[in-house]
């Protein structure tokens, strides 16, 4: 039996790589274009596995509106293809219309331009310096200069409104005492600071923090607030977000004013079904430092 026989052995198929078997395929068929300009091209070919594949390509042929062409240009339209274009098949897709709508983008206002280009420009530089919006010091409120932990004014600044558990008295007194040119003394250790209370408050805040895990990706901070509010006053709600994707990472923290409220919330909500997921609510372990 030769290779030309209709029934082929797989070994021969592999050797020939399908190239020389094209004569076995039915001829290419072109249907249309019909009155709607729909043209159908039916082709057959062998795929990598040597199976016969029928490829139907439907093309809508449209006339370009009022294109005025010269006589010679119309004649050139009917020129036969040459070079590599002769063997071009329908599936080659050399010419495609962009799926994306491209607009002539107006330039940005001169003022906004440098910032925009900087933000979009060099991701490395952005990492180093921090995005203008991301890096906001919670102590002094300065944007894009330093992180809260590195704030040079952290012992000078007024406590921010959001931290109601910080003792205002301790902070203000420390300003007065911290102006001397001596070695650094933490505000809480300075003379006049309500030492016990300050340390206690801080501890208690950490302890009143409840960790919520197995959150659904759709859960936002307001949702969490709504969920925990019935148990008592809440000072902070935080849902961890992936910086890159902006999606929730599936866990968050809720800080209660009162420890008892927090305990009740844990008792009630641990194992609670929320948004098709079973929540795990527990005391947040304080950070190692």
């Amino acid at each position, binding site marked *: 039996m030769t290779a030309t026989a209709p029934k082929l052995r797989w070994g021969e198929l592999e050797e020939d790589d399908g190239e020389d078997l094209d004569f076995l395929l039915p001829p290419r068929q072109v249907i249309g274009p019909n009155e709607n300009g729909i043209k159908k091209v039916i082709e057959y070919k062998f795929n990598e596995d040597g199976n016969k594949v029928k490829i139907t390509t439907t093309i809508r042929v449209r006339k*370009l509106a009022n*294109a005025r*062409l*010269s006589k*010679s*240009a119309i004649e*050139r*339209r009917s*020129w036969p*293809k*040459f*070079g*590599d*274009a*002769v063997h*071009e098949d329908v599936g080659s*897709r*050399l*010419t*495609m*219309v*962009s*799926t*994306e*709508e*491209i*607009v*002539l*983008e*107006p*330039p940005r206002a001169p003022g906004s331009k440098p910032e925009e*280009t900087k933000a*979009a*420009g*060099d*991701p490395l530089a952005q990492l180093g310096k921090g995005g203008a919006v991301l890096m906001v010091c919670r102590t002094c409120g300065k944007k894009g200069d330093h992180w809260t932990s590195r704030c040079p004014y952290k012992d000078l600044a007024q406590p921010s409104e959001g931290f109601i558990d910080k003792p205002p008295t301790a902070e203000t007194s420390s300003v007065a005492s911290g102006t001397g040119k001596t070695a650094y003394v933490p505000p809480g250790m300075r003379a006049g600071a309500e030492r016990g209370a300050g340390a206690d408050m801080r501890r208690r805040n950490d302890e009143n923090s409840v960790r919520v895990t197995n959150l659904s990706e759709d859960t936002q901070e307001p949702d969490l607030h709504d969920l925990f509010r019935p148990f008592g006053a809440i000072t902070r709600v935080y849902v961890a977000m992936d910086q890159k994707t902006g999606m929730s990472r599936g866990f968050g923290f809720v800080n209660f004013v009162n420890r008892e409220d927090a305990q009740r919330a844990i008792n009630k909500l641990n194992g609670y079904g929320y948004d098709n997921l079973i929540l795990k609510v527990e005391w947040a372990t304080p950070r190692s430092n």
Partner: protein
Amino acid sequence: MRPILMKGHERPLTFLKYNREGDLLFSCAKDHNPTVWFADNGERLGTFRGHNGAVWSCDVSRDSLQLITGSADQTAKLWNVKSGNQLYTFNFDSPARSVDFSVGDKLALITTDPFMELSSAIHVKRIARDPADQSGKSVLVLKGPQGRINRAVWGPLNKTIISAGEDAVVRIWDTETGTLLKESDREIGHKRPITSLTKSTDGSHFITGSVDKSAKLWDTRSLTLIKTYVTERPVNAVAMSPLLDHVVLGGGQDASAVTTTDHRAGKFEAKFYDKILQEEIGGVKGHFGPINALAFNPDGKSFSSGGEDGYVRLHHFDPDYFNIKI
């Protein structure tokens, strides 16, 4: 607008040229096959096979029957546009870069790069009406200055040749005597190599693009600087709208730096400037690499850009483009 993407080339594009009627678009790339496309729908008409190196530029005769290409394989070739057959090969001792048919298509200029001890040169060849009579003899050879000549074109009535290249100076040569007539002022001219030069439709002025991140508009006769367009990236390609007072600059950072920078930072857009006010009108994005070639359809209603990414993007303007006011 939805641009038409043409992926016929496997290497970066180098040059784009429309024929006079604007129905054919010729593209040259660093792969060896210049290609001709139908400029309305982007369908490939054919490829010109025969070169053995990067093809740097091309020009088509007024009757769209002959094509001349200059290639790094040290030849310039004449082609039959209809059949894709080679008509004649001009051989040189160094890579041919810029080619241009004169007004009337009786002459063609071909520039060659400096190579070994050879300096750059502009060769003027007579183009025979019958390809069988074609000879390779040069009518005129202008020995170039230092550095490569990136682009040379014929001046009005073929009396002059305008050249620009790596030494950042625009020169006007006399085609009768072969003498240098004018040189652009180094003070006001480009500071870095000139990459591209395009004449206006009527030939009264031309625009040059340079690595010094600017494009300049010059008067063809007096070589006075008319306008300067400043951008943020090296300019690789320039084009002028034949319909509106718009110029388009294409560029992007060096091809060697592409992989090390974010594509958003690359500024791979074709930037539109108002020709008179020198103000930016807008940018057309889309390429994944620097834009190496730009060409306006002679009817001014579409333009195409060729990039380092190997794509030709053919843009037909939306109707509102023609009403832009700044």
